[in-house]
């Protein structure tokens, strides 16, 4: 290790100066690097060691022949995805549903955290927090079954209400005009309480002295919310947002699989459901790896870009 140090020290003057500072930082914080050790061992052993598996995407993999024995097919698996008849429609659906979910659902947990922070009655606060995260623990099979009943045009709760107000019953789950909205709404219903937790915790991490100081200055509650609470959790918001856009191409496969039907494929079929429905990925490790790789590459690119933009415009970044 000292070798590296001397190598840098022998470099040009400018580098030497910078390198020297970095070297001092490194030497002065060796115990920091020791703290990292278990994490790095974990990373290398359980994350990077199996990473060679992505090459399966470029093969016609057979599990009995293994990677060394399987045939290389280049980009064939990707071609198969892109040239499958409905790919454009499916991609558009994926992007639309995902964007709706981000735009409409990302802010709600933040709002919930802000509102809960204003609640002074502890029992009420605890009760609400506990209740709104309950649906997270039920699987989509159960939630979807419930919505089929609630949204039914004959005798469903929602349509009874629409009719009571003089409207016509709507067939929410078979109408292409409504299906995406139903998907976004139910996803929100299931996950906002859960997603709020990280923001609630961030709010709890804000130094209470700031509020006291602001109150003395005569700032109202809304002012405090905007000038103390929101900035106090901004780092968490930025982090969550950047990570969220990384899963842009995952629009909710499990959810949609349990909710959709042939009449709404036009608006609801996303990459994950399409691949599953067509049985394209069944036992076909190469194809499913290729689809996964496509999603990962797009996601990683978005995270890198998000981090860059955030650094430039918000002066905040993950790295």
């Amino acid at each position, binding site marked *: 290790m000292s070798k590296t140090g001397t190598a840098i020290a022998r470099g040009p003057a400018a580098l030497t100066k910078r390198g020297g500072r970095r070297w001092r930082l490194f030497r002065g914080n060796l115990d*920091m690097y020791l703290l990292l050790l278990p994490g790095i061992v974990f990373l290398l052993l359980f994350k990077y060691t199996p990473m060679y598996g*992505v090459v399966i995407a470029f093969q016609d993999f057979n599990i009995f022949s293994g990677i060394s024995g399987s045939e290389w097919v280049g980009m064939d698996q990707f071609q198969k995805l892109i040239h499958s008849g409905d790919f454009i429609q499916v991609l558009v659906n994926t992007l639309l549903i995902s964007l709706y979910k981000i735009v409409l659902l990302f802010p709600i947990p933040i709002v919930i955290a802000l509102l809960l922070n204003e609640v002074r009655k502890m029992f009420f606060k605890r009760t609400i927090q506990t209740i709104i995260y309950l649906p997270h623990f039920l699987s989509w099979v159960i939630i979807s079954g419930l919505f089929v009943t609630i949204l039914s045009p004959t005798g469903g709760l929602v349509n009874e209400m629409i009719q009571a107000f003089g409207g016509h019953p709507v067939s929410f789950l078979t109408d292409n005009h409504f299906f995406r909205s139903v998907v976004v709404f139910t996803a929100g219903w299931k996950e906002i309480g859960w997603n709020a937790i990280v923001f609630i915790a961030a709010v709890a991490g804000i130094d209470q002295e700031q509020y006291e100081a602001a109150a003395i200055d005569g700032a109202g509650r809304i002012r405090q919310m905007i000038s103390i609470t929101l900035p106090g959790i901004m780092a968490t918001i930025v982090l969550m947002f950047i990570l969220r856009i990384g899963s842009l191409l995952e629009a909710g496969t499990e959810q949609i699989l349990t909710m959709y039907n042939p009449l709404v494929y036009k608006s609801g079929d996303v990459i994950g459901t399409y691949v599953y429905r067509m049985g394209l990925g069944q036992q076909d490790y190469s194809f499913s790896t290729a689809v996964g790789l496509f999603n990962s590459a797009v996601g990683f690119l978005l995270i890198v870009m998000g981090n860059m933009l955030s650094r430039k415009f918000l002066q905040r970044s993950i790295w």
Partner: protein
Amino acid sequence: MRSKTIGDRALDTFIYVVLVCMGLMTLLPFANVLSKSVSQEWAIVSGKVGIYPIGFQLDTMRYVVTNHQFLHSLYISGLVTVIGTLGSLLVTAMTAYPLSKRELPGMGVLIVLFIFTMMFNGGIIPNYLLIRQLHLIDNLGALILPVLVSVFNMLVIKSYFESLPVSLEESAKLEGARNYTILFRIVLPLSGPVLATIGLFYAVYYWNDYFNPMIYINSTSLKPLQLYLQDIVMNADTSSLNQSADDLMNVPAEGVRAATVIASTIPILLVYPFLQKYFIKGVLIGSVKG
């Protein structure tokens, strides 16, 4: 405290109304499953059970929770969740702390290397081969070690560490404290909310994980609760008319499924109210500073 202004009252009312509506809506699905778990089977099949039980009975629940396999799986899940959560919290905090010091050489690259694995992974087969080489197949270690550090959780903790005032650590450093002392003596005690959050995330992850057990565990005696639950819920999807008649005749009743869902979810639900005290209080950094 000062008497409330009209604006304050209006704000309060607004907040309470919004939160109560939301609470009621999100309570619906759970109330439905809970009602099914204590209703008569005929009432469930004919769709009469809404948000309250019809023909209240506890026999189904008793049948489920006294099932030998259920109890044993419950024990396995509890074991994995407790050991996994503690181990994960420790290693994650140890990893996040150095990474929150961006001025240290190499940290930026390391963060990207971690984030890279959030998106890219080798897939089932190389992972399975690795676990096999480590002799962890059919061992509960396979449910913990490969998922010990969640990059997402690590980034949340790191982001929290970055928000702590630097002055705290600097004064400790001037007094000659080592970094690990600062982490364990000063930083972690100030991190109640984030540790509670991440602890909850890990606990829920370990509790709910059925994929790793499905792949890495073969023995019935080592199967955790979620795998059992997943099998029961999957098995009940009778929409496929191609199943063999023997399977159809053995499908668990809807009430049994609902009771299994409830019985296997309640233990993990109890964790949150317990952790809430760390969320609600807020942190008083000043008290530590002084």
